[in-house]
Each structure stands twice: as structure tokens, then as C-alpha cells.
């Protein structure tokens, strides 16, 4: 997994609440058996018109946001399905960090597995960052995972909370499966016990 340490980038504002996984990556693109190449279809139904041409009103089609690396989004981002294609598409587009007041549980976990940092901040601070993001390419937002801070283009800094284990994995680009394999003895012991106490499992 790619490491995430610091990021200084353009942030795209998406104030809509409840942006769901069908909006992030519609199901027609779930038929892939690969993880890569989904960025071109990120937010497909909002990003492209019925004839396949770009919708110039959509934020990521505007010249100042085409290189966005951060997304500032409305409440409950990523609700809906468990499809990891959602963070795969976000990452493939080039976005490495999402900032919102809240996320759906499965989407939130999926981000960490893919080197994307989902930051939770209170509404008032997300509002400040949303305004900052609206300045376009003149405003670069800085994210520092080690220090757990987000800094606006005006130099205002907010601290965020992040689970210590998830932070450790993201900072070091660690593979979860490898880490768990190191605890194989605990799993073996659990299974032995289970076979006696719950043989029907």
C-alpha cells in the first residue's frame, strides 16, 4: 500500500450531503476484475452528460480542480454499498484525502486500505475548508498525518483525530494481511478452542 505522510494540494468542494457510492462509481464500472483504471469514471453520472461529453458545471471538470488531490465533502460521504471500487476510483483520479463531518462506515475503512486519508472534522471547520476550497487553484490545503493537522491556505490550522493503528499503517504503507499473519498463533489457538466449544461452526 502507498504511504500517506503529508500532502499539499488543491481541494475540490462538493458540499452535497449523502454522496453515495453509486454517485462515486456507478455499478456499470464494477464489472472490472482489476483495481486500476477507474479514475476516468469517478462521479461518472455527474461528470458526463448523456452523450458522453463532459458536464462543464461539475467541479472536477473545471480547469482549477482537474488536478485536485483533496475532496472537501458534505455530511455522510460514501454511504451505500461496500464497493471498494469507490476508493479505487478516487485514488486513481489522484485524490488522496477526503475531508467531511462524517462517512459511512465501510467506505471509511476502505479508504485506509488504499492509502487514502479520510479526515473527520466538526461542521464549522469543514465549512471553513469548503470556503477555502472554493478559491480554486489559488488555495492549497496542507494535510500532515503525523501531526494530525489540516492547514488552510490562510494558515489556519485544525487538528483531527485518527485511530492510532490506522495512522501507523498509513504512515508506513503497511499491508494488513502481513500484519495479521504475524498473529497466526492466536488464530490457531482460537480455532482449536472453537472446535471443542462450538463444533457446528
Amino acid at each position: 500500500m502507498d504511504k500517506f505522510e503529508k500532502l499539499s494540494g488543491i481541494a475540490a468542494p462538493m458540499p452535497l450531503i449523502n454522496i453515495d457510492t453509486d454517485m462515486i462509481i456507478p455499478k456499470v464500472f464494477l464489472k472490472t476484475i482489476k483495481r486500476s483504471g477507474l479514475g476516468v469514471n469517478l462521479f461518472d453520472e455527474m461528470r458526463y452528460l448523456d452523450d458522453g461529453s463532459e458536464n462543464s458545471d461539475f467541479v472536477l471538470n473545471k480547469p482549477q480542480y482537474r488536478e485536485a488531490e483533496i475532496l472537501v465533502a458534505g455530511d455522510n460521504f460514501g454511504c451505500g454499498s461496500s464497493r471498494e471500487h469507490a476508493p479505487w476510483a478516487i485514488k486513481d483520479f489522484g485524490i488522496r484525502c477526503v475531508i467531511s463531518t462524517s462517512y459511512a462506515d465501510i467506505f471509511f475503512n476502505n479508504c485506509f486500505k488504499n492509502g487514502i486519508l479520510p479526515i473527520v472534522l466538526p461542521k464549522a471547520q469543514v465549512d471553513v475548508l469548503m470556503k477555502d476550497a472554493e478559491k480554486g487553484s489559488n488555495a492549497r490545503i496542507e494535510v500532515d498525518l503525523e501531526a494530525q493537522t489540516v492547514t488552510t491556505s490562510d494558515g489556519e490550522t485544525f487538528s483531527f483525530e485518527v485511530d492510532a493503528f490506522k495512522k501507523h499503517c498509513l504512515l508506513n504503507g503497511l499491508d494488513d494481511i502481513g500484519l495479521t499473519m504475524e498473529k497466526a498463533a492466536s488464530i490457531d489457538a482460537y480455532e482449536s478452542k472453537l472446535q471443542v466449544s462450538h463444533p457446528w461452526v
Partner: protein
Amino acid sequence: MTAPKTLYDKIWDAHVAHEAEDGTCLLYIDRHLVHEVTSPQAFEGLRMSGRKVRAPEKTIAVPDHNVPTTLDRAKGIDNPESRIQVEALDKNAADFGIHYYPVSDVRQGIVHIVGPEQGWTLPGMTVVCGDSHTATHGAFGALAHGIGTSEVEHVLATQTLIQKKSKNMKVEITGKLRPGVTAKDITLSVIGATGTAGGTGYVIEYCGEAIRDLSMEGRMTVCNMAIEGGARAGLIAPDEKTFAYCQGRPHAPKGASWETALAYWKSLFTDEGAHFDKVVTLKAEDIAPVVTWGTSPEDVLPITASVPASSDFEGGKVDAAARSLDYMGLTSGTPLTDIAIDTVFIGSCTNGRIEDLRAAAEILKGKKIKDGMRAMVVPGSGLVRAQAEEEGLADIFKEAGFEWRLAGCSMCLAMNPDQLAPGERCAATSNRNFEGRQGRGGRTHLMSPAMAAAAAITGKLTDVREIM
């Protein structure tokens, strides 16, 4: 004496294989369900790292999302990408030696219907699947939730998940439901009351007289949509109905093993005085037959209401509601029963079981669907389909003008050819009304099977109580 525990606490504690100092746990997984959409990258990951499936005997796969549901599906899948995904699952199941119900097997169906039907899902278990509607299995008092593909790979390789415990939430439905009101109306009404993020960070335990009164199938409908309320999982304590449902199923324990299991299952309830971090209570008698009007499952109203205005809402919901109304092509103030529909879809892991088909057939018996209406029933599994044929339900549907399909996810998410055209309006028994969910530009109204059947007859959203 130990502190009183919730049902969730008990199942959690019984599955912790390792706990780190910061509370991060390795949770042991008893059943891993797999379908073709969210698994190919996980199996590929195993191959690339030379890993095996740790517990193939606890891993069950079935293709459901992409499979055609038309009667000619034995000829194969036309769409090359869908075909490749299903073929990949065929190969992965064989290569890694996991249980498999291929498209040609009569037991094939939606993974969340097949699991309980075959007795894979049992009380007290942990059940995961790369699919958010895994919450369905919570109806058995199993801790069941959706996971992403990286976690699918993690479970395949280690039979565990890296987890931190969620908080406890109680949703109590007191009293008795009124006639015409179903499990679907309960679960939609709860989401209407709490919002789609109301359960975020929680595992919900549904309880109360109205929940106890539900059949196992109704309980599955309720738990299925726990995810739509944002919860990690929904649970219902097992009882005699649960045990009766499980007994005799192909993969349920038998003989002495059944007795041991039963004794354990009877300990799976929330202790008196256990702590819940959040409590929501609804009176069953206040719940009406409901439909959704917007593009979020929280956009729920009784069928007797009218289309709201965006100004009825506050905060970010004002813009979201305006966008929904525009997308849905609705004008505020219109009575919901004036909304004409083009298509009816009965099926999905929410409402594709035999009781759902019975409820719809009861309304449709001796009646015809509205001229020009497209209507289809997609049974949740091949066995549900066979039973419905045996009970004469299939004939009722066909005589009414419904298409009688083979099992699969179908138009719930439209990954197979069953899709809405732009602007087409559908009365659906599925679980999501998101923009484009049933096809780009398609408009979805969620409701119970009986309500969907009523809409098929009148051609409009309809209060089922008026034609019962």
C-alpha cells in the same frame, strides 16, 4: 458477577482471537459469503502473494449481481464484462476449493437469501461478505456486515478481520402493527426517523413486540436495511422462531450437535440492565405503509402524504432535497398517490423471499396489471422460485401480467440487463433509491411487496389498504 451484556457484546466477546493494547481486535469470522463483483481482485491478491484460503469449508460463493434472470440464461451471458466476472468466480471457487452454487444450480440465488436458506447462517455467528446487505443475516442473532474487497482478501487469507468495537444502539418497536403494514414499512420508517447516518458507529439491536411478532423472513427484511441507516450491523435476538427456521437445513447442526448449539443459542440475548449508547423507540401503531419520494432511503413518507418541498428541510438537506425532487421529476404538494409509475420490480435481498411473493400474490390474485406497465418478479433464489411455482404463486403473477424470472439481484442494482431507462419510474421492493441505482436517470420509489403489487394494478403509487 460480570456486568450485563448486550447481544452484540456477547457475540463480539466470543469472537475476539487477539486484542492489541489499543483495543484493535482480530475478530474471528465464522462464515464468509462471496459473490462475483467484489471478490476477483481479492482472489487475485491471494495468487500474487502465494496465499491460500485459510478456511475454505467456511467460505461460500454464489454469483448473483451479474446473472441474467431471463428464462434463456442457460445460453450464457451476453455482456462480456459480466461474463468474465462470473467465469472468474467459477474458476476461483474451483481453484481455492470453496463451497459454490454456480448459475446452473437450482440453489443459486442472491447470496443473502442462499446463506440462510442453506443453513450456513446460524445464531451467534460472525458473517461477512463483500456486500453491504450482509446485514440481512443479523435476523438470526448473527453479527453480520459488509466489507470491502481488501477485507475480503484479509478474511480469505486469515479468517479474521481487523476491527474495533462499535457502540450499542437499541431500536425498539413497541406494540402491534396495523393491517397492511409490514417489515419493510418498519425498516423504512426507522431510517426515516433516524436518517441515513443515524446508525453510523453503531450496531443496532431491533427489539420490541412488533419485531418479536415478525417471521424470520420479516426480520431479515428489517436487518437488511440496517446499513441504509448507517449502522455496521443490525441484530435480532434468536428465539423459537429462529431455531425452528434453522432446524433441518442442509448445513445446520444435527443430532447431539444441534442440542449443544441450541443450548448456546438460548444464551444469546441482551441481559437485563445492559447499556445502550443510543435508544430509538417507535410505536408500531404509528407506522403506516410508506414509500420513498427522493433519492436517499431516509426520504420516507406515509403513502397518505404529499411530495414535500425542499424548504421543509434544514441545513444541507435543503439542497439535497431540491436535487432529489428535480431528479425524481416531482412537484411539491402532489399527493403521493397521484404519482404514475411505469415499472414494478418485486425481488432483491430485501424482499425476494417466499413470504414476500405470497404477500404480493395475495394482492394480485385475479387481477391484471395496468395496461402498458412493465412488471417483473425476480425470486431471491432458485428454491424460492420452485416453491412459489408449487404454491401456485407463479401462475397468479403470470396471469396478472408479470414476468416470472429466474433468481438474481436483477433490477435492484441493474448490473445485469434489467435496467430502467432515463426518466422511467419504478415501484421497487429493493433497498436503495440512489440516483441511477436502477439505471442511469431511472426513478425509484421503495416500498413493500404488497404496496408494489397494488401499484402494478392501479399504475400509480397506491395505499394497499384500499384494495386489500
